[in-house]
């Protein structure tokens, strides 16, 4: 019986101290503060030129994805989906990503490494002309038509209407 009481006492103590620790670390106020930061931060963060980590791509980046100067857009010809209700790597609602794309490389200023960037056109809606962008790294339209970023890449989609372009990181470029 004594052993059982001791055991129960110990369990009680553990639970009590665990709850206290939990309450200290995650009080209502700290929860509200974190929620507030998340809500406010989520709306402001895309506009701030700060280093960000993108979970899915595991990449440190710097700059404003709504600006044509953003590093990923070094070879983008078109308009930025991040200004049109989408993000730099996803189409706005109602637009369909083209399966075929043209691929270039851009240097990430954070780690000074070259990355392969896939420029997918988002199609099926009237053009979104909010943020025009025309950068031409590796763009060789006359010599290599397949390396022209002015080509309409809305092939294999329901509609050939061009809406905007995203820039998806595919991985590191080769060093040679």
């Amino acid at each position, binding site marked *: 019986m004594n052993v059982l009481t001791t055991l129960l006492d110990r369990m009680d103590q553990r639970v009590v101290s665990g709850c206290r620790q939990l309450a200290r670390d995650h009080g209502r106020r700290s929860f509200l503060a974190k929620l507030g930061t998340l809500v406010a931060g989520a709306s402001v963060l895309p506009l701030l030129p700060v280093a960000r980590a993108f979970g899915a791509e595991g990449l440190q980046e710097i700059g404003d994805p709504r600006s044509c100067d953003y590093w990923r857009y070094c070879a983008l010809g078109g308009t930025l989906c991040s200004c049109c209700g989408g993000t730099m790597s996803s189409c706005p609602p109602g637009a369909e990503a083209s399966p075929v794309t043209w691929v270039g490389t851009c240097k990430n200023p954070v780690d000074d490494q070259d990355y392969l960037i896939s420029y997918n056109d988002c199609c099926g809606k009237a053009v979104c002309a909010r943020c025009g962008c025309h950068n031409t790294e590796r763009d060789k339209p006359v010599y290599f038509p397949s390396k022209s970023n002015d080509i309409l890449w809305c092939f294999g989609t329901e509609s050939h209407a061009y809406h905007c372009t995203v820039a998806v990181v595919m*991985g590191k470029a080769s060093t040679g």
Partner: protein
Amino acid sequence: MLLLLTPLVCLADPRADYLLHCGGCHLADGSGNPPEVPTLVDELGRIVDLGGGRDYLVRVPGAAQAPVSDARLAGIVNWVLTTFNAQTLPRDFKPLTTEEIGRSRRNILADPLRHRAELWRAAYGVDG
């Protein structure tokens, strides 16, 4: 020996070359977008053993005109064959050599689809 090999290994990254020069249309997994963009999965393993099949792989304009050296094109084509065509590649497959690719790619095909159909017909007597 390892030190001598290291720069070669660092320079030649066939997957990155593939993504940069081919993957835009043939897609990262080689599946393409048929019928406009043919698939590179499994079908090339069947073509490689046909008469003229090895040549065909680098005589298609996309391969022949890719802005890469013969050695790097060899890296890309062999990577595509062993990665996307492991199921269909002949057991005694020998990787394409740089010299072989240098010769073949100079003989670019003006009508690759027709040529491919002819290869298929010559081998199997049916349209591919």
